């Protein structure tokens, strides 16, 4: 199991050091600093073995978190734990920075004591932790016995992510379908690979212990219902009206509140949600993806000292919708000496420090097209190696889900309290963003 956990600043100074196992000594702290942080080269592996000791590390801005062990630990678990540790710290004191860590070091030690025991991760749900790790030490003494046992049963219980007795005057929930669409396209416009990785993020402000059921236009469910002869589910089952009736989901994973065995057997998604914001599910689709933009590059080398670049982008969605925050990044060779750009829409600039022309457009409606042309002057070099031509990448945000996913319903049942599904105010929003959206040129 995890033998120790260290946090360093960018210089390799130790901010936090907690040792859980006897086989990890103080010299491990230095070994990592010397061999990894001070190595100052590209990280060749997130797992490093130094003198029979294994170091797992992740980096958040310029802070290094390292878990250390001498045993054959579950490596995936260690990384998941480090990510979780970052989440917990962010939930407690915001951004992970040297300043914040130093200011909260007592809290961090207290957290580390709680969520890692002898190197075994324990309950690390912030919702539960915040009920008893408060940095107001005296509180413990004034709790009633009921309060104490409520805390312990929540921390160890089946529904560790939610406490009892939550009350809201207005029961409300927000669903955000956030998708990032990834594309790799050949210069000829052939899709080399494309997939959508999506997340359903829920903000729930619901009283009591509500039992929820979530439905979407999952092809497997829709097909099954079609065969069964039953028409749509009662309630809110309006489809957005655009395009496909159902989508094929390659794979999905759920927050631990979702009953996985029920999903496995009936493919229904039922759960008692945590209070506040959390990620209900993640999914991935590869079939029939709506690619919101198409990039058509044209690069011509004129002699050895000049490049002509022309890039056309076409928006490919309903004309009534507007895409936002569009940014096209056209890489330029390292030996670029000057660039002239002409674009029809938006603003374009050559950024020498990033070796790229960055073209920004605030808004663009569907079924439109725009163009940029640039002349790039090059310095003559002796470098035999040809320019690697990195792909043209693109960023954007569109108000629909490129996978075609639609929320069909989210039903809420709370039998003990007197509110019903109809009293809950529900909001659904779709945002499609670019993930790695690249076209080779």
């Amino acid at each position, binding site marked *: 199991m995890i033998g120790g956990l260290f946090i360093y600043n960018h210089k390799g100074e*130790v901010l936090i*050091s907690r*040792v*859980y*196992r*006897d086989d990890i000594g*103080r010299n491990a702290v230095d070994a990592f600093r010397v061999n990894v942080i001070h190595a100052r080269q590209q990280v*060749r592996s*997130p*797992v490093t073995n130094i003198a029979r000791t*294994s170091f797992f590390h992740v980096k958040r801005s310029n802070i290094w978190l390292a878990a250390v062990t001498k*045993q054959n*630990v*579950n*490596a*995936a*678990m260690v*990384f*998941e*734990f480090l*990510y979780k540790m970052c989440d917990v710290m962010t939930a407690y004191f915001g951004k992970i920075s040297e*300043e914040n860590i*130093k*200011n*909260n*070091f007592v809290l961090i*030690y207290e957290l580390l*004591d709680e969520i890692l*025991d002898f190197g*075994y991760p*324990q309950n690390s749900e912030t919702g539960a932790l915040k009920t008893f790790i408060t940095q*107001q030490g*005296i*509180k*413990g*003494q004034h709790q009633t016995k009921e309060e*104490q*046992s409520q805390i*312990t*049963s929540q921390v*160890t*219980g*089946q529904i560790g992510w939610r406490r009892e007795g939550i009350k809201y005057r207005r029961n409300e929930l927000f669903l955000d379908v956030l998708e990032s669409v990834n594309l*790799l396209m*050949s210069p000829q416009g052939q899709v080399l*690979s494309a997939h959508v990785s999506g997340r359903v993020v829920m903000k729930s402000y619901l009283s009591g212990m509500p039992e929820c059921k979530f439905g979407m236009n999952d092809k497997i469910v829709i097909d099954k219902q079609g065969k069964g002869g039953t028409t749509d589910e009662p309630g809110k089952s309006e489809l957005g009206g655009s395009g496909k009736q159902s989508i094929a989901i*390659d*794979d999905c*994973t*759920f927050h631990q509140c979702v009953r*996985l*065995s029920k999903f496995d057997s009936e493919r229904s998604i039922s759960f008692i949600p945590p209070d506040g914001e959390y990620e209900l*599910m*993640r999914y*991935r689709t590869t079939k029939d993806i709506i690619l919101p933009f198409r990039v058509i590059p044209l690069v011509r080398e004129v002699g050895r000292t000049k490049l002509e670049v022309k890039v056309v982008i076409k928006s490919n969605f309903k004309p009534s919708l507007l895409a936002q925050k569009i940014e096209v990044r056209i890489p330029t060779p390292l030996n670029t000496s000057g660039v002239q750009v002409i674009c029809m829409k938006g603003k374009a600039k050559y950024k020498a420090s990033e070796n790229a022309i960055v073209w920004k457009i605030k808004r663009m409606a569907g079924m439109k097209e725009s163009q940029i042309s640039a002349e790039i002057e090059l310095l003559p070099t002796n470098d*035999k190696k040809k320019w*690697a031509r*990195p792909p043209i990448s693109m960023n954007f945000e569109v108000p629909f889900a490129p996978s075609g996913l639609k929320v069909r319903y989210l039903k809420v049942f709370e039998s003990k309290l007197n509110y019903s599904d109809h009293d809950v105010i529900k909001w659904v929003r779709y945002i499609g963003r670019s993930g*790695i959206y*690249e076209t080779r040129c």
Partner: protein
Amino acid sequence: MTDSKYFTTTKKGEIFELKAELNSDKKEKKKEAVKKVIASMTVGKDVSALFPDVVNCMQTDNLELKKLVYLYLMNYAKSQPDMAIMAVNTFVKDCEDLNPLIRALAVRTMGCIRVDKITEYLCEPLRKCLKDEDPYVRKTAAVCVAKLHDINAQLVEDQGFLDTLKDLISDSNPMVVANAVAALSEIAESHPNSNLLDLNPQTINKLLTALNECTEWGQIFILDCLASYLPRDDRESQSICERVTPRLSHANSAVVLSAVKVLMKFMEMLPKDLDYYGTLLKKLAPPLVTLLSAEPELQYVALRNINLIVQKRPEILKHEMKVFFVKYNDPIYVKLEKLDIMIRLASQANIAQVLAELKEYATEVDVDFVRKAVRAIGRCAIKVEQSAERCVSTLLDLIQTKVNYVVQEAIVVIKDIFRKYPNKYESVIATLCENLDSLDEPEARAAMIWIVGEYAERIDNADELLESFLEGFHDESTQVQLQLLTAIVKLFLKKPTETQELVQQVLSLATQDSDNPDLRDRGYIYWRLLSTDPVAAKEVVLAEKPLISEETDLIEPTLLEELICHIGTLASVYHKPPSAFVEGSRGVQHKRLPPRAGSGESTESPDVGQSGPSEAPPAVIPSQGDLLGDLLNLDLAPPTATVPSVQPSMQMGAMDLLGGGLDSLLGGDIGGSPSMGAGLGAAPAAMPASLGGAPAVGGGLGDLFDLGGGVGMPTGSYVAPKTVWLLAMKAKGLEISGTFARRGGIIQMDLSLTNKAMSVMTDFAIQFNRNSFGLAPAGPLQVLTPLSPNQTIDVSLPLSTSGPVMKMEPLNNLQVAVKNNIDVFYFSCQYPLSLLFVEDGKMDRQVFLATWKDIPNDNEAQFQIKDIHLNSDVASNKLQGSNIFTIAKRTVEGQDMLYQSVKLTNGIWVLAEMRIQTGNPNYTWMCWRRPHVRECVSQNDSPVIS
């Protein structure tokens, strides 16, 4: 909240100030001071001097302060054990507190204080806490048992905590169950043979129920524990799989990977024609692909594991090639791993896409990545014949870029392509020759030289090209020198008239001016071959080369099996067995996959037996395969290298003995082997034939290999070549080398004594220490004449087995004392266990049958012996020569099963089953009886066979 100020106090006299503040009456001030102490501790300052003052702050109502003091205690208690006792009272009191959080805190902290005296006091509170009404306290106490076990294992057993811990598996609270499982699994690791976890269908059922309810981490503990269970039949296996598959949809990648591990393992037991088997295969792909959208560090872990899964069950991901395409912004470690998997998944169906991608990668920035991409193109050519032409033209395009390392890498892989498809792509040689000057890496130079030598007859100026390399012969690396030597000899055999001078030159360079024994030896062999029988030389040097395999960099199957059992863990990331990087007893235990369902398939999963740590018997003679391979100039290893994943199997621990060790033993067996080509795979029969036809050559080789009378002595007990036991420098000039033999029922120790000192040696005597089988000299050491300087004398010492017995480690270790007129010298050596196989070891059939059935399963061990081209009858005869008797034989689905018995001098019987599959050069050897004997038996028997 500006605690960062505590980090900045670095002035002198700080400790005194802190001391004062710690003893202050004001609570706030105290707390501030403790915080300062902890901050100093964090940055590595020694604040142990403040121990009593900090401990004094422990008695407090302030929980935050208390936790800080505890933190300090955990760090320094070990250095101040006497003062740490001061804290005990508070702990014991806290364990009785009304607040469960405080009770748990106390028991948690107490377990972390590694002071013997404190552990004594810990027992009672711990016992109470294990039965606490509050689950939070129980789950903490469960982990505390593991902590205590780490400090004092005996205490935990004596106090009966293990039983209490076992009871917690049935606890009503899932988190208590999970922590109890974690603690038990850890304790069980250090007691490999105890039945601590005692998994049976009932407990498994409890675990599966808890699995649905506990935290993500708890699920990981439970799944990892489940993976060590061996279901009783395929039905049970299937029902567990069914209950584990929902975990594949968990958001936590570690839960997913651990579930994959359980499924991969239990799948082994399902019959392949079962519908469910197919369903399961289909279910595994999507979650594995989803792992690739995790954060890069996890992607890396996932990819290393997928690499194993693809080797074990290629069918799972065969349609998912595209997800492994490299993204421009992937970290380099993700890119390299993806590339590895792409090569493994490349097939005729997707080769066009793959090639287009690889070509793209070959223009990237990172040198390692580009090299690997170029290499991958070559692999594709070798793997998918249809694509070979396209690959070659892609490689030529890359050579045209003139980027130095791309060109070199391309040449190395083109050499392999030539090997695979002879006489097909030689048209490109001209292009390659143009780049001769730019090659500066040994591997590329050697590859180029090989190409020139191999195709010397088609390259007009081959002699000039090779001559140009010869100028700087001594500055080249060994690899290049060896290759150059061979290439020029080839050239000479092909164009003898023009190149006589050249060959003379290279032979004298190699034999006279070189310090490298490999090079010199090879030079001499060529020289003798060429001078005595050029026809034979041609047959040897220009012989047809064995095919190179399509799949490369494959992990050796037994290691792969073991790694599959470690999916998700560090072992799967390093591609090494845990024993290679874990110290001590933990994790050294080898895990294995359950036996494959259906009888005919059992060879698919050769299990690794549990074999204890023991050293390989000294094997000084290099493997025969290598030597012959060298002569046939195969030393440009067929596509391997680059990936470090292959090497781990050679690293250490018992694995090696069974993997590399055995192979080299087999290879090392030169004397008395009728099939010299055996080690070579599909090696040409030309070698032994030419040996017979050209006695002079045979004699020459005999000298070199120290064949002695070996050739033509097909049967009889195996005698290992003599090895040096006692070095002259350690024994005032006396060098002893020796071996053991069994001749006509008498065990003999053959010794060569060499006097390397300046004075005469006399008065030799020998004595053995007590040993496992009671070996003792049956007579005095017969050295009649005095041993004069530089003289060697061979002595045979008969041994008896009636000496005193003492178990040795390893079992076959023998400690010897030799005396002469100068001094007494000690050395130890290891004898092959086959020495102890007695002539009357043939068991009665009926007795055999009865005994066989009575053998408990855990007395069983399995080994694989590789690359033996003997059929069962020959093998059986040969084994009989070493007193391993075949009692019965049966043939099941093309496999010959030999049932054998062996009796040792001390009356212990060993029963064995040997499976031989026709056409498969690998033997599976299973043997039973005494656990510690079987290890040695297995090691020692393999040479006997070939």
